[in-house]
């Protein structure tokens, strides 16, 4: 029943916020809810028996293969944990942002969380799809109501939101079609993952079905060249919205690849592997290069996230122990990193009144502690050893090398690009002579520490002792790989 509680707690809290609109207590209620879900997720982890668990199986529309089946394995648990643990920080970050209508905003955030939990625990393809698209709805309103305009044509918040919505929805349609196709092919017309994973589709079908399945996730992640909604959306969205998008929502893409693409169309994956890995790697390099000359700090973070995500996808498609577990480990690290980076963007913006790098500089004189925090986050961003990111990237590099040396080379090159743009951004913001144009502002305060210090601590502790997460992954990744090999 823990899983159902995980679904219901944020949902009920959101409903309460939506109905009662207690603007004053909204954040407290939302925080409380997120703490409860975090505790539940940890309980789930403690009770994890070490193999695939199905906890609830209800018929919903069985004729169409739609059953309400929820459960989890090691990878699902990782994503559930990630969602549960990162949301308190996202909600907590809102206190300093001071957006209007906090009740509505927090309600939307909690709705998203509920839908995300649904995605990560669904054991049925249709159920997955329903939650997958459901997560878009609250986010749509979040972006629409609180988004800001970005420069460029069609840069209004509304236009950017519509673009994001339509584009991801189109990808989702392809997925729906593919699921329907698979369910029709399945002898008992079941849409349970177990049944779909046992499906042996003919090779030529797999080759086109691959794209139908992959497209939704390629857009969601996003992978080059399906990424162009991302930078504008990240820049336009309110800070918390971007945190959700970059921190958790895109992990649905990874999870989807793991649940749909790799097991259902193994021959398609085999056929398209190098194409996809190269697309992802080119995207990682491309975004890394672009990030260097971005003037807007938030957009820089968007491109850096794009670069990291390319690597994540490449690692996943390397499809061996190191590639997959590295990618999943890095997914966790990336969530922590994105939330930290975006919180810093907000903290810097509150102090300087801008996100324009050209207008900044010398903030360290006024805010040395903030500079130190930024620096510590940066260590994680450039994947220095003994941070979380290093473990993930190291595993991915090894995984890619076992596929192909040149892939590994392209992937490793991103560590240079990362260093170039991150150090540049740090210097532009923090270092240099004291900037008289900056308004008089304080250093990092208690609230900043409350959000950033635990996250930084997590990134360092899991960099030195990655064992808890790696052990969680090890079993289920091995199991997954053995099913893949059984499919050939």
């Amino acid at each position, binding site marked *: 029943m823990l899983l159902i509680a995980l679904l219901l707690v944020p949902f009920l809290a959101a409903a309460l916020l939506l109905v009662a609109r207690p603007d004053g207590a909204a954040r407290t209620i939302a925080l409380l809810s997120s703490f409860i879900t975090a505790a539940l997720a940890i309980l789930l982890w403690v009770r994890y028996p070490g193999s695939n668990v199905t906890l609830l199986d209800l018929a919903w529309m069985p004729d169409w293969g739609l059953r309400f089946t929820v459960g989890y394995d090691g990878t699902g648990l990782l994503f559930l944990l990630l969602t549960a643990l990162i949301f308190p920080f996202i909600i907590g970050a809102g206190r300093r942002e001071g957006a209007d209508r906090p009740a509505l905003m927090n309600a939307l955030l909690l709705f998203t969380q509920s839908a995300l939990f649904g995605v990560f625990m669904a054991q049925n393809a249709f159920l997955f799809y329903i939650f997958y698209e459901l997560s878009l709805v609250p986010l749509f309103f979040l972006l629409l109501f609180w988004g800001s305009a970005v420069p*460029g044509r*069609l840069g209004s918040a509304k236009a950017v939101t*519509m*673009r994001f919505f*339509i*584009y991801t929805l*189109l990808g989702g349609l392809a997925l729906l079609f593919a699921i329907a196709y698979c369910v029709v092919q399945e002898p008992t017309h079941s849409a349970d993952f177990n049944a779909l994973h046992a499906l042996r589709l003919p090779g030529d079908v797999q080759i086109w079905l691959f794209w139908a399945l992959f497209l939704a996730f390629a857009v969601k992640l996003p992978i080059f*060249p399906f*990424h*162009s*909604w991302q*930078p*504008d959306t990240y820049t336009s969205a309110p800070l918390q919205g971007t945190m959700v998008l970059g921190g958790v929502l895109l992990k649905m893409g990874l999870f989807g690849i793991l649940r749909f693409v790799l097991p259902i169309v193994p021959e398609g994956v085999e056929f398209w592997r190098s194409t996809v890995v190269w697309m992802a790697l080119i995207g990682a390099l*491309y975004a890394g*290069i*672009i*990030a*260097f*000359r971005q003037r807007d700090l938030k957009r820089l973070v968007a491109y850096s996230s794009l670069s990291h995500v390319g690597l994540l996808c490449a690692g996943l498609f390397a499809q061996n*122990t*190191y590639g997959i*577990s590295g990618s999943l480990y890095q997914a966790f690290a990336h969530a922590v990193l994105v939330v930290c980076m975006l919180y810093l963007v907000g903290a810097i913006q509150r102090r300087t009144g801008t996100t324009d790098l050209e207008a900044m500089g*010398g903030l*360290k*004189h006024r805010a040395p502690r903030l500079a130190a925090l930024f620096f510590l986050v940066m*260590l994680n961003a450039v994947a*220095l*050893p*003994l941070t979380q990111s290093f*473990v993930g990237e*190291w*595993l991915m*590099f*090894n995984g*890619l*090398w*076992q596929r192909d040396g040149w892939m590994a*080379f392209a992937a*490793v090159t991103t*560590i*240079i690009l990362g*260093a*170039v743009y991150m*150090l*540049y951004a740090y*210097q532009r913001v*923090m*270092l*240099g*002579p*004291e900037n008289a144009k900056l308004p008089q502002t304080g250093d990092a305060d208690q609230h900043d520490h409350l959000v950033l210090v635990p996250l930084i601590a997590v990134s360092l502790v899991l960099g*030195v*002792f*990655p*064992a808890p997460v*790696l052990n969680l*992954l*090890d079993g289920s*990744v*091995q199991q997954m790989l053995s099913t893949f090999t059984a499919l050939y």
Partner: protein
Amino acid sequence: MVNLPLHAAMVPGFPLLGALVIAALRGKLKGNAAGMLATTMIGLSFVVSVIMFLHTHAEDGPQVVNFFDWIHIGGMDVPFALQIDALSLTMMLIVTGVGTLIHLYSIGYMHDDARVSTFFACLNLFTFAMLLLVMGANFVMTFIGWEGVGLCSYLLIGFWYTKPAYNYAARKAFVMNRIGDVGFVLALALLFSRLGTLNYVEVFDRAGSLSVEMVTVVTLLLFVGAIGKSAQLPLFTWLPDAMAGPTPVSALIHAATMVTAGIFLLVRSSALFSLAPFTQDVVLWTGLITALLTASIGVFQNDIKKVLAYSTVSQLGLMFVALGLGAYSAAMFHVTTHAFFKALLFLGAGSVIHALGGEQDIRKMGGLKGVTKITYVTFLIGTLAIAGIPGFSGFFSKDAILMAAYQEHPMLYAATMAVSLLTVFYMFRLLFLTFFGTYRGHAHAHESPLVMTVPLMVLAVLSVAGGLLNLPHLFGGHEPMKHYLETAAEGIAGEHNYLSASTEWILMAVTVGLILLTILLAYNRFVKKTTLDPEPEEMSIFSRLIARKWMVDELYAFLWERPYGWLSTQFYGILERKVMVPITLGAGRWTQKAGKAARMLQNGNMSFYLFGMVVGIVVFLMITLYGG
């Protein structure tokens, strides 16, 4: 006697503790407290290193201490482990020993800086990372230290962060190191995919099972890493720029310890390198060209620290020459003596800069030998040592390299000889212009306090006596360091020397004669006449090219920096905004178009709707009836 895990953990543990404590209390530590604490910590780790050196029997082979599983998944097991053997003990002693002296010196040098606590925290953190680098029991552990020292180097080069030029230098150092790291990481991934382990002991055991091509690729990639860290061609330009950091930093990081990490790595993996003759040639030639190129640049530099920086690059080049020749013990010996005398020279330079209130241009110095006596004497000892005057440590270590070069080919001997002579020339130029003649500046010079001069004196003693560590047979010694290191690095055991004693004596005499001649030349030019270099614009084209550092920085700006920025701008401006964004916009636009087309059906004509309905029903009926 020696609790190995405990002692091994204490060596890097103390500096880490120091760094954390100082960083945590940095607002509260007053005056010299941070410096004292940091110095105590590294001093303690030096003491522990000495105890370990005396009481662990490193000669019996490497001892590995496993602390915990670090990255353990699937078939990969990378433990958090330290390895104690002759090589790591040697490096530990150098790092902590020289490091302690430099920490002590820094107390005096940095005493009036507002962020002195931060400085010492970084310095201690650096020591921690460097110790991990040399003590790591597998490649990944070494890589932790490898990146860690790069990070601390970044922090310390950009320590005075208000100057954008310094920040640029710091970034440059970090990025260039990262370029090398790409090679390092790829080598590790390749080794792992072939051998399934990265622990030094096992890798070197199984090295024989690799094909020659594979070893060559692995070693070349490792060498790329070493190039970045040890500032060799083509990645050497960051080191002279790194002189932006405080002088003790230059002494510790950019002369004595961090930059020798590349040498250490090659010696550590000598078992691999000795299997790859092609790589050894590459190492040899890279080292030689770097040594010649940067030694020539050193002749025209006017910044006291830049001269020493180019000298460091050039000496590192010599060490790589030795490595390329398979003379691993000679390289390690030179690493050791170089740590002594180059640290001494840098600290001496720091003392001069301190005395002149921050002046670094040797054209504005002169005649300081009367004012700063201790600095002068120690600097002189350092210069004699690096020049290779018989009896000083540099003589023995450099001679070992020259002999190895002669053994390979007389021309190689001539080339390394040229490097040594250039070294002698610019070092004496530096010495003469700084301490001889008349004072050409305006500052009020004064000798540095005792806390700074004591380390100078200790290092001076070491620079003189360091040669005893590996006294060759020729002088009645029996090369103790070489025999000690043999137990740790397989490559050393394979070295052999077949030059006859008379050849060695003749070569030595030639060397010493040429060195003395060069000193005389420098004396004539810089003491008798005090020739100051004109501005580059007035020189001949060739000299101007050298004075502008062979235009390497300009070349890189042209080849990499500007194209990279251009690429970034163009990718964003054209590819992203003109191609990629329209794709997404297109998704929306096509949806709109489809909607526009579909709404033509809604023309409001009731009969049309009815007609549509009827047609639909009829079609549906037909399908049901005849559609199979």
